[in-house]
């Protein structure tokens, strides 16, 4: 199954470039424009990333992570959920940069190709910064009664998080 991921990437690159050439797009110019935007994005998120990587690093160094993990361990082990993922699970819905800081920490301590590393990757890739999204979208039009939005969004998050562990077990091991 993992081979699909590896093969589809070259196929996608070739496909996009060939189709764009066929549509007479100035591919190189467009590529540079997009790449430049990548730089701008990174520079924009860097201060947040810095602040959160520092705080997550301190949490790990102080031993607070171990406490949190040990505290929640009874619940997660009941679900067969790796306790190393708890910090990511808690951070993911709140802050994108925070989740990035936590996943960096996970990749440093376990490899990205380990079971925990893969679960963390899938979790990160298939969920979003739920509360931030809700705040921005409703805030922009001045809606304060969001009714069932948060409940339904958390259902999706929960599926993403449990699903990540299940999917890694089923198709990536």
């Amino acid at each position: 199954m993992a081979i699909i991921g590896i093969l589809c990437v070259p196929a996608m690159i070739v496909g996009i470039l060939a189709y764009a050439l066929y549509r007479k797009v100035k591919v190189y110019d467009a590529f540079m424009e997009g790449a430049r935007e990548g730089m701008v994005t990174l520079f924009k998120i860097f201060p947040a990333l810095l602040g959160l990587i520092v705080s997550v690093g301190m949490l790990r160094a102080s031993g607070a992570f171990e406490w949190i993990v040990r505290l929640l361990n009874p619940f997660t082990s009941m679900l067969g959920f790796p306790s190393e993922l708890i910090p990511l699970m808690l951070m993911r819905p709140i802050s994108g940069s925070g989740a990035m800081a936590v996943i960096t920490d996970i990749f440093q301590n376990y490899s990205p190709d380990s079971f925990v590393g893969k679960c963390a990757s899938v979790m990160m890739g298939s969920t979003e910064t739920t509360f931030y999204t809700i705040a921005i979208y409703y805030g922009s039009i001045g809606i304060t009664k969001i009714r069932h939005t948060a409940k339904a969004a958390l259902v999706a998050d929960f599926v993403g998080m449990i699903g990540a562990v299940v999917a890694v077990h089923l198709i990536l091991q």
Partner: protein
Amino acid sequence: MMNYIWAGLIILSFVVSIFTGKIGETATEAMNSAKSAVETSISILGVMCFWMGLMRVAEKAGILEKLSTCMKPVISKLFKGVKRDETRQAILMNITANIFGIGNAATPFGLKAMEEMDKENGRKGVATNDMCLFVVLNTASIQLIPSTLLALRSNYGSQTPYSILPAVWAVSVAAAVLGICAAKLFAKNRK
């Protein structure tokens, strides 16, 4: 909210470190982490920019419009209350931009869609069913190439950074589908 979380994390670290006797390490780690934040950011920049560049090529080639035409029937079915074409178009562009990971384009389209939906909203200040559904769709990330994630994976020595993609797609589709079901179900119960 981030103010409390961020300051809370740092204060908690120091409080815990008093009990664990690691106060020195915690203070040192702050400096080391700041350094590694720079290293991480610089080293993921290449992969991130590469994918964002490629996705821009796809956008210029009109692949986004193609995809949004394909999805139009599904979107019309899901968003029953949306009557006007501008609204539908904004929703479609937001979803396709999300799929292609062009966050900078997705958010403006998303905000536009919310604004358009609010014009058809009878009760100001209260979310409609369609709005709930739309925000839920945005919180379940369906993304073809999660470029930052791939960059981080290869930066930390993954042999096959892409191998996780099928699992990511499967799980995000499952999360989105169940999110939609939950939104529809909760909406029905409220009536």
